[in-house]
């Protein structure tokens, strides 16, 4: 899996909850392409139509608070968002994102130093984040070894699938 991303920033505030990332009334949907149509709909109804593959979501503290719905991570992943950078993440969202291999990184102060439309480069391995539009550089918190291992394997399912296959042999 890729660990270095460059893309256009979309800026969001703090406490972006899962109802804003993916409204509960669409929870019955199962196809990723249907789920991606409602990405961040509650925070910015136009996000799904304007976001391009590889774009970067930047947010304040507590991104993904609220419910445990995985659709919140699925919708970002299936919209081809490259990486989510926030000042902090709600823990269930964080776990879901790692499990589904949606790259994310915590970086204090980031939401005040990036404007909508800036071009940002994020390197997950080193935690280095550069705003290419302003040339400012930040260092985010590097992921734990286990989280990185899951991300690099394309999600926890692949890891379990291998384990199950090993058991059967």
């Amino acid at each position, binding site marked *: 899996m890729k660990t270095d991303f460059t893309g256009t920033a979309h800026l969001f505030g*703090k*406490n972006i*909850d899962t*109802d*804003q990332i993916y*409204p*509960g*009334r669409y*929870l*019955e949907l*199962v196809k990723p392409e249907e789920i991606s149509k409602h990405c961040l709909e*509650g925070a910015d109804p136009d996000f799904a139509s304007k976001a391009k593959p590889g774009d970067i979501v930047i947010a304040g*503290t*507590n991104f993904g*608070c*609220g*419910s*445990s*719905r*995985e659709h919140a*991570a699925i919708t970002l992943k299936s919209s081809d968002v490259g990486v989510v950078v926030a000042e*902090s*993440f*709600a*823990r*269930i969202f964080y*776990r*879901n994102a790692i*499990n*589904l291999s949606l790259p994310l990184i915590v970086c204090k102060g980031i939401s005040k130093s990036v404007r909508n439309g800036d071009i940002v480069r994020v390197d997950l391995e080193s935690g280095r984040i550069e705003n290419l539009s302003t040339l400012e550089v930040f260092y985010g918190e590097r992921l*734990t070894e*286990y989280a990185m291992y899951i991300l690099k394997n394309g*999600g*926890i*399912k692949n890891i*379990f*699938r291998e*384990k*199950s*296959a090993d058991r*059967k042999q």
Partner: protein
Amino acid sequence: MHAIEKMLARAAGKEFVTAGEIINCSIDFLELNDLYLQVVKSFYEMGGERVWDPEKAAFVFDHYSPAPTIRTAQIHKEMREFAEKQGFSHHFDINKGVCHQVMPEAGIVRPGMILVATDSHTTTHGAFGAFGTGIGATDAACVLISGELWFRVPEVMKITVTGTTADNVHAKDVILNIIGNLKADAAVYQAVEFTGDYIESIGVADRMTICNMAVEMGAKTAYMKPNRAVLDYVESRYGYNYVLDETDTGFEYCREEFFDISDLKPQIACPSSVDNVFPVDEVEPVKIHQAFIGSCTGGRLEDIGAAAEILKGRRIADSVRMVVIPASMEVFSKAVSKGYVQILIEAGATFNAPGCGPCLGTHAGILAKGENCVSSTNRNFPGRMGSTEAGIYLASPALVAYSAYKGCLSDPRLSREDSK
């Protein structure tokens, strides 16, 4: 170590754990709600065949109960089939209620256990001295296969609550006040312990309401040292075979906060965040269209009783519709025997089957654009109960009921003097 750390250490087969450590714990119970058929799909995608222990996992049909659409009916059908095929010993179909209410009622929850569920409000079970936390569907599928899950041992924040509440001020007001002060991101990644003479004095229902909403501060889990009321409840339903963990003296909390609630006024969380909280006398008497009593936060017997006490012999305003959904069938049945249901029906309320109802905006009383709802539930994010342009005001069941009577947001402390 803190009591929570002792529970985690035991589940991880370790003598000692410290905050920040990543550990692998064995799970005592996994509860799956009806939102995520993905759990079953992921189970098979990951090569699962038999669940790790059919006595330790159960489905609860609550969010879509009874099924409002063909698609959700299909979800229920496939979950029933999975439960049957795997030989689950517990199953909670559409006739039981909201997951966090039916788990303790069924005698599953006890102090010292590790309980995970595909729902963020699993913090509720801290009321029983259990470690309860919400997980996503993929995590749940991993538990179904292995019976284990990794956790980061959380720091613990201590919130001491002292004093006694005034008439018509409830546990819901206490927790709204705490969240309003500390804010929605106060406890991200942390555990929250509630303690103090107020917490020691309250019963099971009030404790559940407070722990339930700890997640609205970002908490991973909540904890209250069980009091006699809790132990009586657990012993009568589960039995005596539980472990009571004690926090070591000298344990260092990551943060301590104090609240004296003796002069607390009824509180309202205004749109559109749970920490946007004001005392009732600082909120405009906004006209309301729907009043809702229900959910895992405010749908227990005591909540319905508080609403009935306010509405006895009264009629709700003509401009208001009032929806009441008992949190479980047991609650419903007791509310019938106590006469609350009759009082509320005579006051003009509409009852729906036990479950989540409109709390999540999927059915049973959702809101149109431009409408306002006063609700005993836990979240008022835009679009939570229907249109993103509806306003949700969170409050105690007493405030909800009195506002339904007046037609606008109103202070339930005025209920007594108000001529009937």
